[in-house]
């Protein structure tokens, strides 16, 4: 099996062959003499050159991270043969000028109606979830071009609420 694993800016090519003795692994062409054991669901114990690593898979809100020790690595895994991503890649990373709801909640106030000129960081609307009110701020200086919701509306995680141009 061949995978392209993107962590931050870097993409690594990982080749895996499951043999009698376990896994044979190449990372970016170099063979890695891994000793891998699955200890629990989503938890691997990897020995490499005498070093011991506990590797955990953290999937939450559609993002997949790999935890090694106390380091977390957001990882996107692609199978180069089928050029689609196995895990949704982090939308937040793409720097779009949309304002979307980060979790389910309720719109309690529109601060900047359509047409309002806003500074970067100025709040556009306020949504509430789990007893906390949170101001959704404009990602850029510009004008509120679009509002897809009105006060009182219930919103889903990821739902696009407004656009700033």
């Amino acid at each position: 099996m061949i995978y392209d694993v993107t962590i931050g800016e870097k993409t690594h090519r990982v080749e895996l062959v499951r043999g009698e003795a376990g896994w044979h692994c190449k990372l970016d062409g170099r063979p890695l003499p891994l000793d891998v054991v699955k200890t629990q669901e989503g938890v691997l114990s990897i020995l490499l050159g005498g070093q011991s690593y506990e590797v955990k898979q953290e999937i939450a809100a559609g993002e997949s991270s790999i935890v090694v020790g106390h380091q977390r690595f957001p990882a996107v895994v692609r199978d180069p043969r089928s050029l689609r991503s196995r895990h949704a890649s982090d939308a937040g990373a793409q720097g779009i000028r949309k304002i979307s709801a980060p979790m389910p909640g309720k719109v309690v106030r529109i601060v900047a109606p359509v047409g309002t000129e806003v500074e970067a960081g100025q709040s556009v609307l306020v949504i509430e979830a789990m007893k906390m009110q949170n101001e959704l701020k404009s990602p850029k200086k510009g004008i509120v071009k679009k509002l897809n919701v009105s006060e009182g509306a219930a919103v889903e995680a990821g739902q696009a609420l407004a656009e700033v141009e």
Partner: protein
Amino acid sequence: MFKKVLIANRGEIAVRVIRACRELGVATVAVYSDVDRAALHVSMADEACHIGPAPARESYLNIPVILAAARRTRAEAIHPGYGFLSENAHFARACAEAGIKFIGPTAAAMELMGSKTRARQAMQVAGVPFVPGSARGLSLPEAEKLAAEIGFPVMIKAAAGGGGKGMRLVRVPAELKPAFETAQSEALRSFNDAEVYLEKFIEKPRHIEIQVLADEHGNTVYLGERECSVQRRHQKVIEESPSAIVDEDMRRRMGAVAVQAARSAGYTNAGTVEFLVDAERNFYFLEMNTRLQVEHPVTELATGLDLVHLQLRVAAGEKLPFQQEEVRLRGHALECRIYAEDPENNFFPSPGRITQLMQPSGPGIREDSGVYEGWTVPLDYDPMLSKLIAFGADRGAAIARMRRALDEYFIAGIKTNLPLFRRILDHPDFTAAKLDTGFLDRLLAEKAAPFTGDPLEQIAAVGAALFAATAMPKNTGQSGNATQDASPSVWKRAARTEGLRS
């Protein structure tokens, strides 16, 4: 001691009180809303009463329904925990009228301390310095007038408030109006009371509070201090006891003030007197919280006492089992509040199903948790999941131990603020105890260390591929459909037969 106690709360504090009751041989009654039927506190209690739909106002804040449950189950007392009805004098009074012991101060003491004006007067009598500002609720025009007088920055606070809900900092006049309105509506939602007031904002203060405990025979003691300067938007994130800047003398002076404050209010049971401490170690009375605090465990570890046991015993009419001189602090304790929120995304709440939970343990580690693997965190309540507490011989040892425990802690399925704590504990200002309530905001403004080039990145890459190759989309954070749940076993089979092991 009471035969039976009803716990008018949920989450970790309900579990914590149930444990204390069990240890004292007291039967427990849990209450739960529609979304909490499968919650931990319901399974752990001896009895459980359904009290309504998810919204707190219709369940955990619903006084008539909760009192009816207490009567029906013949509970002799009610422990309110923190939040919800814990500082609601109407509730305390209603309990008294129903002949049910409210485990906390009297309604009168609560009202006195709840009323900023009267609390302030009591403090003046006690000769306590306090922060300039309005002692009572204001209209927006009044607020604007007062703010102009005492000068910006100012703080807007919910009169019925606590825990940072309905609080807003205002640095310039232009910000006052929107902040005032947000605070009002948040206060209304959180406390059923839109009243807010205004205070001068002290730059770079430390938040240090004194735990007090009073029995109903006139004995009042203080149990050392807690420093809670690590806050985000006035929500405490890490607390510790003792404080690095409080010495024996300062502790005695703050303790004396706190005890006097409690006495002047005719205070009984557990309470906390909060102070702001400036750079010169002057302390200003902030407010008295007339309830058990979230962060009470650090005091328990530093003193060796159990505050909930003591709350129950005092409420049952017992005398305090010790004198002030017998209270000794030993070692250092640290608490991290673990929230279901995403530190990489404005700390927005991240409700959902906990698909995996690996909890730390071992020497010096205590966890007060309200969740379990498989539990779906509802989005209707405060997103705190658990409290991780570390004890060590000194502050350095406690920090090192907390780091170790955080490395062992793993939660999948929902986002949590676990990654944040590592950053805080590694920050030179934190390890040097150079703290003020702005510390965390400054840290969050700093760029997090980039992981690229980290030697572990290669392992992570290989791990990611191995997980993909052996596809186990178990912990996807959704409450699993067929394929998601079936595949792990399929995978497990494969692993065993073909052997992942070499």
